[in-house]
């Protein structure tokens, strides 16, 4: 069971995500833009400012060579997790529907927020219960989710209005549930010393799902 964290130029939560994955006992590698994703069961696109958010958050990263590798992984049904800037990249790659625009306040927002878990049967959310309220940090300037079309598999919703997202959507999955994009940062909520542990179960869900699948 092996995970990788893609390091785009300008990623800045790559090391935090690596730390969280290691913390739940996964083997983890960093991968660069010219690497292959064949060896990995879980591929994480971390938060940050890939290419300095120039052009549009995630837009340049979505057109890198590694995007082809990600598409291959999708075809094979591997688990793909995009956090924050990673979510923006998945949207730019059209792997998830909708758009992520600038927060309605026009400002960056960093704080702990309450979320409800709308879908507890994805490989990422098995360890939560449906409609459970959890606390995770957000830290983004472009997190306003705008729905395009009706078929959106919503996984997390904010309890209060954080950034002007449609239906307070904070995270969504692909139809088959194997791709998850979310603005909040579960990797920042894995140790009580950092103020909360509700993110830990997301990574534990992944571990259990992959363990079951390999049997």
């Amino acid at each position, binding site marked *: 069971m092996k995970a990788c964290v893609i390091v785009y*130029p*300008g990623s*800045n*939560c790559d*090391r*935090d995500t690596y*730390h*969280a994955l290691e913390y739940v006992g996964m083997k983890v590698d960093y991968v660069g833009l010219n690497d292959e994703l064949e060896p990995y069961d879980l591929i994480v696109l971390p*938060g*940050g*400012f890939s*290419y*300095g*958010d*120039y052009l549009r958050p995630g837009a340049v990263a979505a057109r890198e060579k590694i995007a082809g590798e990600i598409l291959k992984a999708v075809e094979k049904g591997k688990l793909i997790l995009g956090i924050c800037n990673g979510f923006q990249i998945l949207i730019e790659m059209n792997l998830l529907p909708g758009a992520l625009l600038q927060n309605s306040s026009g*400002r*960056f*927002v*960093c*704080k*702990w927020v309450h979320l409800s878990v709308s879908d507890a049967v994805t490989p990422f959310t098995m360890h939560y219960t449906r409609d459970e309220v959890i606390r995770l*940090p957000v*830290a983004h*300037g472009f997190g306003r989710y705008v729905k395009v079309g009706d078929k959106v598999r919503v996984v997390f919703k904010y309890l209060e209005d954080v950034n002007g997202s449609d239906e307070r959507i904070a995270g969504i999955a692909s139809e088959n549930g194997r791709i998850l994009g979310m603005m909040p*940062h579960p*990797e*920042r909520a*894995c*140790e009580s*010393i*950092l*103020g909360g542990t509700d993110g830990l179960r997301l990574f534990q869900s992944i571990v259990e799902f992959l363990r079951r699948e390999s049997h």
Partner: protein
Amino acid sequence: MRYLKILKEKLGRDPTFVELQAFSVMWSEHCGYSHTRGYIDRLPKQGHGGNAGVVDLDGTHGIVFKIESHNHPSAIEPYNGAATGVGGIIRDVLAMGARPTAILDSLHMAEVVDGIIRGIADYGNSIGVPTVGGELRISGFYAHNPLVNVMAAGVANHDKIVPSRATRPGQVIVVFGGGTGRDGIHGASFASEDLTGDKATKLSIQVGDPFAEKMLIEAFLKMVDEGLVEGAQDLGAGGVLSATSELVARGDLGAVVHLERVPLREPDMEPWEILISESQERMAVVTSPDNARRVIEIANDHLLRAAVIAEVTEKPVYRVLHGEDVIMEVPVKLLVEAPEEPIFQYQPGSFPNFRKMEYADVDAHQVFEQYDYMVGTDTVLPPGLGPAVMRVKGGCGYSILTHSRADLAAQDPYWGTFVAFLESVRKTLAVGAEPLAITNCINYGDPDTDPEGLAAMMKALKDACEFSGIAVASGNASLYNTYMGKGIPPTLVIGMIGRVDPERVNKPRPSKVFVVGWPDFVLEREKDLWKVLKKVVHDGGFVISAMNLINSTHREALRRMGLMLKVEQLPSVSPVHQMFIVFTDSLELNVPFREIGSLLRVG
């Protein structure tokens, strides 16, 4: 003009045009510390002398830290001025071989200047270094001269600390980063003048590119990791000129600089412009000729430009070439030893009866919330309750704060500064940390028309260091914070680092609330107060030590932790007092204390 005369005497001839440009940068207050060096020399020091200070954390890790001002640029162009202030101080810490792990600011302004906050936020957030707190002082004193001081800290293994100098002839200097353009030409001289001067235009302001900075951080740390870096300095004020000359001067060596090799953003730059441009996101690395190729390769891999631009020579001469042409040739020492102004002895008076001159009580979360204070997953105590507490993955931790008391220093520069130091110690003790060392930023008006205030402030800093047994590891000075000749109050900002076990930091939880100590100030009681603080924290109490006991930022920080403060009435205290707030269930102390309310869980 006096400096021109000195320069003529030392050179034994009239300086050339290029020399005039070069010396006006190197002998500016910003680079040369003419008015402050005499005072700084007298301060107790520890881990001092490099690009930033270093003190030991746990035997293996060192904490590297420094504070710097970007006041003048932020007054003219708030967004870029503040942003590049963050960039510059981050590179100072980086140049020591440390990964930057925390940013704090100290902002003095007449109202919250949105551009300054956004500048700091956009830059810090993008490079992935958490901005974990600081102080926000709102006062009319700073209407024309906002103060933007930024402190950065980083952690490095002691054996990876990089010297800030060249060490032997035959080494080469590689400059890498973004291309060099015309931005920030004479920024250092502009930052050493009254803001009504004709240099106060946007031309002197650098423009930041946080993406390049992020790539520069990763590239440089990789170079350090591969053992390629023998010395380093960031390119800040004075650009190529100051970085290369200071690197060789500290090693008693010389340099031959080839300006035509510097990667340019604007093709038609004059040689002297290349020499003193303050384009951001550039670093100078001292390495061997053999390793230079790998250094350049790593820079290129990180989408940055790089070139060997200088050789280190034995003869202590600074020789600048552009192709075959000799642009400048002067003794290295002459460049880096700016003329020194006389210093003044100051005799402190007795402790004054301070008037209340409160800052506006604004909730600083409107600022903190725009900063990513959690990236790096090391922030143990969030902003808003006092110092930030940071862990170092793998064991140790540190506390970090910025603090100043210009409201007092405006009335008595000596005692105002002294009290700011004592309060910094209290705040550090309040989170269970042991104070290790400080960095300081001297923000002042005009030292030529009013030398006494500067002397008082510097004497207070020295005396407070000696009183507390805490030394200075690094610092920065920003003088001539004046507008139409009128200066700011003497504003010494202290950045204090403490050592703390991050696993044993008390956090607020539902409990009773007490005040402990005295509503007035008696110096002789101060160290007893420190003992009481340590005991209370050791017994599990969560402490807030602040000049107005509790403010709206504290209340909001508690609310965000799901807690509500219920206090009937706060005791009234003098502008300087020796009282602090404790959240705990019971107290047993031999100093005055009383219960004033409770902290409740909401919802």
